[in-house]
């Protein structure tokens, strides 16, 4: 139903907003990653276009990348909470649920189970996308409990190491010593070990990254979603700097991301055996499908 649900009747198209019609015709719904994926962002109608994020915002870029990487956008629901991220996520062309403060993983627990009872034969992807405060401070218990309970959905933490949306307060994910609002003498305890907590709590696929490489970032986002479908909770911890609160000149945002990749955001990918099995199987299937499509194309040309 889901693709049909998005697609309007041909004659009705005349009466729909142009933006919507373009999304159906030129967006990523029902398309492959080669047709409309991270590799050709800017060349198709993307799920995220307008957003009110600051100029040079690395988080806005990563959110755009998340949506371009979704394996099945027409069957995906996202959830989030207060923070900069939701300003862009709520304007993506994918259903977005905004509840209360830090409750995204609790809501996703209910949503995922209810989807599975209503649509046992279908795959609905549930992805929570929240900031470091929403995921690791105010939402900490709900995040941890969803992992401990083994809930089958993906958690993505947009870590800008600060409460950006409320004006630059220190968070649990801010580095020790950072002078921020509410830490006027510098934060006096360490950055929380989010990926270690995720592993301890039972996440079956955990990645820490600074998304400097589009292909690599897209690959791990997709892996996290594939594994969550079958095995258990998955977690992506991504560095998405706040150039405003950390005073990073716009032209240095990318360099900053590369620098962080060498320090506290070193790439780390963890997976259980069961997760690995799913990844190998799905990626082999994807590869086979790619090869088949290429052969088909070649055949058509000849």
């Amino acid at each position, binding site marked *: *139903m*889901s693709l049909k*649900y*998005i697609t309007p009747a041909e004659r009705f198209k005349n009466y729909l907003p142009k*933006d*919507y019609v373009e*999304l159906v015709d030129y967006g990523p719904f029902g398309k492959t990653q080669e047709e409309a994926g991270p590799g050709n962002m800017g060349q198709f109608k993307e799920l995220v276009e*307008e957003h*009110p994020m600051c100029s040079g915002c690395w988080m806005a870029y990563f959110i755009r990348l998340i949506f371009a990487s979704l394996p099945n956008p*027409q*069957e*995906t*629901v996202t*959830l989030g909470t207060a923070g900069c991220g939701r*300003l862009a996520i*709520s*304007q*993506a*062309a*994918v*259903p*977005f*649920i905004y*509840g*209360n*403060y830090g*409750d995204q993983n*609790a*809501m*996703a*627990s*209910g*949503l995922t*189970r*209810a*989807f*599975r*009872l*209503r*649509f046992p034969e279908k795959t*609905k992807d549930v992805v929570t996308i929240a900031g470091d405060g929403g995921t690791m401070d105010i939402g900490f*218990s*709900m995040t941890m*409990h969803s992992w401990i*309970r083994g809930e*089958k959905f993906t958690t993505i933490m947009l870590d800008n190491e600060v409460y950006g949306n409320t004006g630059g307060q220190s968070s649990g994910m801010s580095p020790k010593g950072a002078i921020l609002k509410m830490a006027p003498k510098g934060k006096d305890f360490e950055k929380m070990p989010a990926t270690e907590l995720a592993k301890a709590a039972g996440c079956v696929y955990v990645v820490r990254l600074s998304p400097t490489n589009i292909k690599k970032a897209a690959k791990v986002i997709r892996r996290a979603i594939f594994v969550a479908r079958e095995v258990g909770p998955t977690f992506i911890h991504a560095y998405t700097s706040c150039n405003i609160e950390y005073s990073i000149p716009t032209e240095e945002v990318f360099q900053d991301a590369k620098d962080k990749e060498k320090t506290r955001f070193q790439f780390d990918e963890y997976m259980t055996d069961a997760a690995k099995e799913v990844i190998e199987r799905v990626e082999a299937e994807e590869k086979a499908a790619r090869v088949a499509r290429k052969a088909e194309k070649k055949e058509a040309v000849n």
Partner: protein
Amino acid sequence: MSSDTRPKLEKKLVDMNYLLKEAPREQHFITGAQAMAEAVKRASVDMAIAYPITPQSEVMHLVGDIYAQGHIKEYYRAEEELGTMSAIAGASRAGVRLFTATSGPGLLRGLEAIVSWPGHRVPAVLGVLTRVVNAPLSIQPDNIEMAYLMHCGAVMLHAENQQDTFDMTLAAFAIAEKVDVYIPVAVATEGFFVTHAKGYVDMTPEDMALNEFDPIAAPVPAMDNETPPARIQRDAPVQKSNFMSYLIHSVWQQEIWDSNKRAMKYIYEYLGGPIEVQNPESDVFVVASGCAAAQAREAWRYAQEDGLSVGLIKVRSIRPFPIDEIREATKNAKKLIVPEHNIIGWLCTEVKAAIPNGGIVVEGPRVYGGMTLPVELIMKEIHDALGLEYDLKL
């Protein structure tokens, strides 16, 4: 979610009018907690989420049992009430029928999520098995938590006894899901006095249940990528500007409170109306809800035996509050006595606000902290109101 080995049950599915008014009933002697769970059993609930707190726990244990017996499709124990109530909100977006319950401090812990259910148009049913709100700690019945729930837009019913608990819990599912309502319904009753005490309950057959939840009929479509119209968020207007944000919030909240008002006709349809009036010609009325209404009923019975001219008004619906009905029923009254199980007297405040002559309202008697409400205290007020002597012996 391993393979489901629970039995597959065959039930006759019926509408709420048939279930409440026509279906055969058989009398059982059960606790209030059992009555609530038995109602859930007959409501084709898809999913229930439990978190323990005394005195609610018994209800959600029993709901767990009926899940294991195959009456409910999904059930789990959450880790605290904010997570529970948020998960209910999340599950509701998938288009399923939901139930949970809590008590006193648990209600307050979950309140941030619960008070957003009406705004999120979550038509879940919430059992409120009343209990003291700390501090000092007490686990005893006291319905002060209901005062905190009264201003969020949810429909609130208050059950006097085990029979009410059964009927109101069933009716709550139908009321919540009406197209012109579609907000949560809370069914409150006193912890221990009702939940842990047995009473006679006329129950419908176990193999007959309410029609399944119909997500297609919902006025607010599920976010399931299935139910049209397509709900893909290209443009979140609330985010656009402060002007749009307060405009949208205000019209949305108006709609919620209008929905709350529209629930009244269904309270008439399923429960016979928001109030029950005995001896409508009386000068003096005892006005009460929940367990206090049971005590008020007993005082009223004594008064009848003594030949005193006293009426009884039982309030079934706290939200929407029956302003017109109470005003009409008390238009010739000289005194209204409002006994309550809480210290602030929220029902008293509501009654005073509903009538043009609030001075006729006697503030109490009230008990709190979980003690019982002696009928003698109500009798004393009745005698005072009638200008008669009463030798109060407790």
